[in-house]
C-alpha cells in the first residue's frame, strides 16, 4: 500500500469500513511508516474533537424573532384571553365571596318561595317574601311535629304513659268506693268530671249522691231505711 492509498483510506479505516484484507495491508503500512502513523493519529484526533464539540448555545430571543418574522405577533387564543379575563376573579377570596353570595341568595329564594321558572313582579314585593316565609315556616313546623309524633318510639312511650295513667286512675277510683273510707273529693259538686272512668263506676257514684238526698226512691227499702234511719 502506498502513502497516497493510505491517505485515501484513513477515514474508512477509522470508521471500520475496510474489508479484512485491506485493513491488514493498512495496519502493516502504518506499522512501518512513522509519517503515516502520525497522520492516522492526527485524523483520529480531528474526529474526536469534532464529535466532542457541543452545539453552540442558541440565543433565547432568536426563536421569538423568527416566530415574529414568520407568523407575526402571536395572537392569544380564545382560551388564553378567557383565562386572562378570569384570572383576577380566580383568587380564593373572590371565589369564596361569590359562592357565599350565591348560597345566600338561593336560601332567600327558597324561603321566599320564588319560582324562577314562573317569575312575576309580585315576587319582588318584600311582603310576599315575609308571607311566604312565614307560611313555609309553619309548614315546616307542622311537618316536623307530625314526624316527631309518628316516630314509633314516641308513640310507644305515649301509649305506655296513657296506660299507666288509666291504671292509676282506676286504682284510686276503686279505693274511694269502699265504705268507711273517705271518698275522693270530686272536682265539682255535681259529680266527677273524669270522662275516662267506666260508666258503671260513674253510675255508682251518682247513686251514692242520690241516696243522701231526701224524697228520692232508692232501689231497695232496706238500704234506703238504713240510710234514712241514719239521716234522721
Amino acid at each position, binding site marked *: 500500500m502506498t502513502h497516497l492509498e493510505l491517505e485515501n483510506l484513513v477515514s474508512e479505516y477509522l470508521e471500520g469500513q475496510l474489508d479484512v484484507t485491506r485493513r491488514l495491508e493498512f495496519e502493516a503500512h502504518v506499522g512501518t511508516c512513522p509519517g503515516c502513523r502520525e497522520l492516522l493519529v492526527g485524523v483520529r*484526533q*480531528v*474526529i474526536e474533537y469534532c*464529535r466532542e464539540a457541543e*452545539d*453552540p448555545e442558541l440565543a433565547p430571543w*432568536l426563536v421569538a424573532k*423568527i416566530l415574529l418574522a*414568520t*407568523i407575526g405577533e402571536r395572537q392569544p387564543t380564545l382560551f388564553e384571553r378567557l383565562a386572562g379575563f378570569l384570572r383576577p376573579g380566580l383568587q380564593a377570596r373572590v371565589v369564596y365571596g361569590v359562592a357565599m353570595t350565591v348560597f345566600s341568595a338561593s336560601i332567600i329564594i327558597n324561603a321566599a318561595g320564588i319560582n324562577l321558572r314562573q317569575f312575576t313582579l309580585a315576587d319582588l314585593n318584600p311582603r310576599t317574601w315575609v308571607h311566604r316565609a312565614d307560611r313555609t315556616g309553619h309548614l315546616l313546623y307542622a311537618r316536623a311535629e307530625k314526624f316527631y309524633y309518628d316516630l314509633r318510639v314516641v308513640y310507644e312511650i305515649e301509649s305506655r304513659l296513657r296506660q299507666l295513667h288509666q291504671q292509676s286512675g282506676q286504682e284510686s277510683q276503686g279505693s274511694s268506693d269502699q265504705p268507711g273510707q273517705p271518698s275522693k273529693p270530686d272536682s265539682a259538686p255535681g259529680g266527677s268530671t273524669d270522662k275516662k272512668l267506666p260508666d258503671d263506676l260513674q253510675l255508682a257514684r251518682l247513686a251514692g249522691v242520690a241516696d243522701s238526698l231526701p224524697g228520692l226512691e232508692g232501689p231497695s227499702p232496706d238500704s234506703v231505711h238504713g240510710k234514712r234511719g241514719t239521716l234522721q
Partner: protein
Amino acid sequence: MEHDLDLVKRCLGGQNPAWEELLRIHARKVYSVCYRFTGRGSEAEDLTQEIFIKVFQTLETYDAAQGTFSTWLNRVARNHLVDHYRRTRKDRVTSSLEDELGHLEEKPSAGAGPVARVEARERKEMLQAALDKLSPDMREAVILRDFQDLDYEEIAQVLGVPEGTVKSRINRGRLELARLLKRMDS
C-alpha cells in the same frame, strides 16, 4: 421522524403552535451548522433566521416520499449557506490562521480542571479556525458528518452528490484539518 411529519401537516393546516414546536426542535441544529460554516455568531443568527423564513415560505414543497424533514431542512440550510458564501466571498478578507482565533461562543467543559478547560477552549477555537480554512465543499461535508452525525446516504441527499463523492470530501476535509491543527500546535 413521524412527529416531524405530523407537525409539518399541522403547520400546513395553519396551526401556528405546530410551527413554533417545529422551530424549537430544529433551531439549535441549524444554528450550529451555520455557526460551524461561518465561524461567526452574529452571522450565524442572521442566516438561521433567513433559513427558517425560507422554510416557512416553502414548507408546502416538502415531499415526505423523498426523505425526512430533517434531511430536507439540512438541504435548504446548506443551499442557503452556499449562496451566502458565494455572495460574500468578495467581501471576505483573507486572514491568517491566527486572526481567526477568538470565537468564544462555546462553553468550557464542566467538571474539568482550569488547565484542562483552557486547553479545551483553545482546542475548540483552533478547530473552528481550521474549519474556516477549508473549502466550502469539504467544510460542509465534515460539518454534516462529524458535527451533525449524519450518515453518508443522508449527506449525499443533502448535498445532492453521490455517496462516493461525500466520502471523498469528508476524508480530504479531515486530512486537511489534521494538517492545519498540527501546524497550529507547532
